[in-house]
Structures are given as C-alpha cells and as structure tokens.
C-alpha cells in the first residue's frame, strides 16, 4: 500500500476527512511558495497538492492559469522543482501530491521522471491522462511506489468506475462540475446522487475538488466524501493579499477557517 492510502486508513480510523489544499509551484515567487508550503504543513493539511505550471493548462480556469503563467515567467521547470523538494522535503511532514499535465513528464521520459520523483512525492495527478492512455505511466508508478489519482466527473459513465478505481492507488478525485478549476458560489446538487453510484461500485477513498470556495461548502461535502481539495480559492486569496505585510498570517487564518 502506498503512503497516501495508508494515510486515508489512518484518517478513517480516526473518523476524520482529508483536507487537501493546493499551491502552484513557484507562485507568487519560489521563496513565497516555500513559506506558503510551511504554512499549509502546519495548518492541518492531510495532503498538499502541488501544481506544476504548464503553458497550456486546458483543465484550469483563469486563477490557476495566472498563477501558472507567473511562475513560468519566473523560470520554473522540473529541475528546479526537484532540487527545491530535495532541499525542503525534510522540513515537511505532510505527504505531497504533484499535479502536472502530461507533456512535461512525457518529455522528460517516464523513467527519468519517476527516478527523481519517488523520494520526494507521494502521489501524482495528471489532469489530461485517462487510465486508458496511462498503461506505461501506471506501470512506472507501481514500480516506484508512487500513488496515482484519477478522476470521476459528472459525465463519467458507471461502466468506467472500476477502471478508474483500479488506476487510482491513492484516491479517486471527484470533479464537482463540468468545467475548469475555479471557485463556484454554488455546486450542483446532483453531486450527492452521483456519488452514491460511485460508492456502490467502488471502495477507494473519494475526494471532492473543483469549485469549493467557502467553509459552508467544505463542511457540507466533508460529510459525504473522504476528503476535499481546495485550490483556486487559495490562489485567489494569495493574489488578493500578497501585497499586505502579514499575508502569510492571513493565509494561515484563511486555511484554518476553511477547514474548521
């Protein structure tokens, strides 16, 4: 069993749900990113999702697009990502899940990528990779013992649930809406009925992501899912408060409030 699944077992035994915040690697700057990472590490995160910036993020809305472009303009790349985590990994207790579009990983070469990734990262999310296309990727992930996360969306048909579960050694990422990442004032009520169908066919942890923007939503969905993922709302908060002196403190308070 991978580290992510172990952690879910641990949470389940305690009757707890996972809180999974997201940061874009190198945003707003590499130095601030490091500080934000430590904030999340000390603010009750069960996992931290790290988004690796890509030039063409087709599954992301404007907020994550801006953060990715800013980080890319400052020159982030995989070499920098790996040397960064080599340096800071020992300071962080929370398991890390990398989210990256497939091209940078494919271009690096799967072997090369996994060799560098496996001591530093506990899980991987590839938003433009379907289990059907991921045969080589899944083999390597297994060899290097990195957990994988695949998606179920509102358009996913029941016949693919078990295929997706088999590919997801970490957890299943349930996408709340048809759409790209970004905060939503309200989330569709069909989520819960669709989740029921997912639960019938699967037994792996299922976490909800995309669109969660406030504590009310977070609380509501933590009741039904094994965890929730919050991304854009955090990046938005960073953008809005970055110029302030105590922005790290404000960020921490915001994260604690979201998860309370």
């Amino acid at each position: 069993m991978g580290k992510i699944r172990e952690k879910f077992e641990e949470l389940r035994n305690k009757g707890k749900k996972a809180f999974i915040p997201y940061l874009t690697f190198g945003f707003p700057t590499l130095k601030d990113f490091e500080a934000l990472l430590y904030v999340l590490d000390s603010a009750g995160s069960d996992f931290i999702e790290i988004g690796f910036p890509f030039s063409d993020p087709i599954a992301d809305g404007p907020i994550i697009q801006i953060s990715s472009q800013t980080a890319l303009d400052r020159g982030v790349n995989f070499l920098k990502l790996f040397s960064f985590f080599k340096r800071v990994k020992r300071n962080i207790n929370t398991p890390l899940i990398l989210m990256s579009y497939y091209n940078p990983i494919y271009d690096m070469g799967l072997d090369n990528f996994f060799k560098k990734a496996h001591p530093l990262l506990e899980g991987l999310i590839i938003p433009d990779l379907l289990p059907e296309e991921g045969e080589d990727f899944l083999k390597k992930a297994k060899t290097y013992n990195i957990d994988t996360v695949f998606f179920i969306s509102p358009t996913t048909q029941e016949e693919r649930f078990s295929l997706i579960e088999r590919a997801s050694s970490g957890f299943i990422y349930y996408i709340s809406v048809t759409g790209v990442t970004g905060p939503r004032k309200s989330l569709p009520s069909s989520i819960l009925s669709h989740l029921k169908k997912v639960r019938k066919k699967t037994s792996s942890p299922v976490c909800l992501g995309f669109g969660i923007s406030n504590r009310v939503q977070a609380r509501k969905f933590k009741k039904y899912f094994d965890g929730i993922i919050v991304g854009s709302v955090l990046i938005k908060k960073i953008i809005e408060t970055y110029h302030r002196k105590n922005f790290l403190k404000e960020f921490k308070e915001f994260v604690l409030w979201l998860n309370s």
Partner: protein
Amino acid sequence: MSKKGYFGEFGGRFIPETLEYPLRELQEAYFKYSQQKDFKDELNFYLREYAGRPTPLYFAKNLSKKLGLRIYLKREDLLHTGAHKINNALGQALLAVRMRKERIIAETGAGQHGVATATVASLFGKKCDIYMGKVDIERQKMNVFRMQLLGAQVLKVEGGSQTLKDACNEALRDWVTNVRNTYYLLGSVVGPHPYPLMVRNFQAVIGREAKQQILKREKKLPDYLLACVGGGSNSLGLFHPFFKDREVRFIGVEARGKGFLSQHACSLIKGRVGILHGSKSYVLQDRFGQIEQAHSVAAGLDYPGVGPEHAFYKKIKRAEYVAVSDKEALLGFKMLSETEGIIPALEPAHALFYLRKLAKLAKKNSIVIVCLSGRGDKDLEIVQKVSS
C-alpha cells in the same frame, strides 16, 4: 488507424476526464451517421449546391511554362467562404444536427475555419461562439467582421501567445464546461480521437476529386502532391486518397516564419514528440516540455503542433516535409497573382513558393498537384503592410 485512435504511435486521447464521454459519444455518432445513406446524400448535396463542389483542378499553364513542371491547382479557394475549411464544417455540422446539440463552438486562427463554422451554424440555425486569439483578431479583421455578420459571437482570447494555440485551449475549456449542449467543431486534423480521423475524412473529398480529375486529364497519377501544413487538414485531405499509390510523392510545406533561429511553425521538422490539445504528435516545445510559441505570417499555419497522422507519415517516410519562410511565402503569393491571375491565401502561398525549389529537384515536366487551400482576400492588408 488502430481501435484506440492511433496512427502508429501518434494520436490517442489525452484529455480531462469530463471529455471522455463526449468524445466517445462523438466517435459513436460519427461512425454511425457517416455510414448512413441519408447523411452521405445530405453532405454531398450541401458540398455541391451550397459550397460549390467539385472544385476545378486547374492546369496553371503560365506557371508550368515558367518552372518547367506540369502544375495543377486544386481550387479549394473557389469554395463558398473562400477555403477548404467548409468541407469539414459542413460534415461536422450535419453531425451536430443529428446529435441534437443546440450550440456550436470553434477555434480559429486565420479566421477561415471560424467563418466556415459561423456559416454552417447560420445555415442550420445553431447558436455559435468562435474563439480567436487577440493577435489573430487584429491581423484578420475582415474575417472577424464576417463571422459577426453571420451571427456568431467572436470571443477574444488573451492568454498565452494570443493565437490559434490559445484559441484551442479556450475552446476546450468551454467544451469541458458546456459538454451537454455544445458541439465542438474542431477545424483541423488535430485534437483527441476521433477528430484527426473525422476531419481528414471530411477533407478527403479534395484528394478523391483530384485523383479522378488528374486521371481524366493526364491519364496517369501525379508525381507530386504539394500542400501547406499547419494543423494539416488541407494537406491530408489531398494526400490521403493517394496513400496507397506509392509512386505519388507527398510534400508538406511548413512555415519557417522568421527562420529556425528565430520563430517558426515547423512542428514536424523541428519539434519533438509530445502531447498538445489531446493527442500525441510532434510539438514545438522548450527543453522542459513547455509548449513554445509558433510564428508565421500566415495565421492559419501559426500553430506549434500538427496532426498525428502527419507525424505518422513522417515516421514511415510516406511524406516529406519542407519549410518555407514568411518572405518566401510572400514571393509565392506574388508569383501566383502575377502569372495566373489568382490571388492565393498566405497559407498555400508557402506551398506555391516551394514549386520553385521543386522545379530544380524534380524531373522536367513532372506532374504536380498543389492544394490551393484558400483565397487571398483575407490577407491583402497584411501583404500591403509587409510590402510597403
């Protein structure tokens, strides 16, 4: 083409989960309807009566004499809306109607595919939104106005390079959001399966006609087929029906832009295998796998990727790919205007210029079919600006 939607090792479906089902639905609809007689009849009707097919295969007498080749122009520029894009737009619109989608979206670079899509949306009474990069909106103003006249909304894309690549990203994001009621009418042989296959099949009418026409005229197959390659739909449309005729050589002309040391759009010649917009093919990317910006004076070629079937043709050496610069394309543009009285679009002007090089390499009087994929009206302003 394998079952999973690959041409050799190229193609596939690299897309967010939300699009898995809509793509499967599209694939099933395409395979089902495109085989049915009423679909074929209706498509043929619109291609003939509305778009103006068959297009002539015109023997370019003056140019042939000048270059010592037997040059035939496949006159896609004479089609309604001014380019080959209408062939695919009509085919996919008939699918959208059968799939009962109420809204059609598309990406566009030069605006030709946007105009073709806006046209068919108007014809079949569908709501239509076209994504177009800010840079392209500025350099193809007339096409923006045409789309608006046809009742479409042109949505400005300001992210990234503000050209075709980013228009594609935005169209995909729209589709992910509105999958249930929206048909994404992709304009080239790129994107996830089944688009590369489907678009090529709708464009193959170019090559099927050309084959009949050349056999009638010359009593034999041509020596060369020549076409520009951006995403690659006009070239594959011409090439594919000749695939098994091994003696016919295919030449795809990519845009060398300002030169290989500066910015260009030669994905096949200079790119590496990677994943862009849902399929595996050659991609212009930096050494860390980020997609690079392409450049071409021809907005329709200004794209850092290329259709997976072209990648396959390159791999198996079925086609040869060459590059022509912005400056050379302008010479090709003038050459055809002055010798034949035909003003080409800047995209096929790349292929036309290459005739001059081919004339030196090929046997005298070789038969060459060039796909004249579009007319030059949209480019007059650019040419005027660059020439002065």
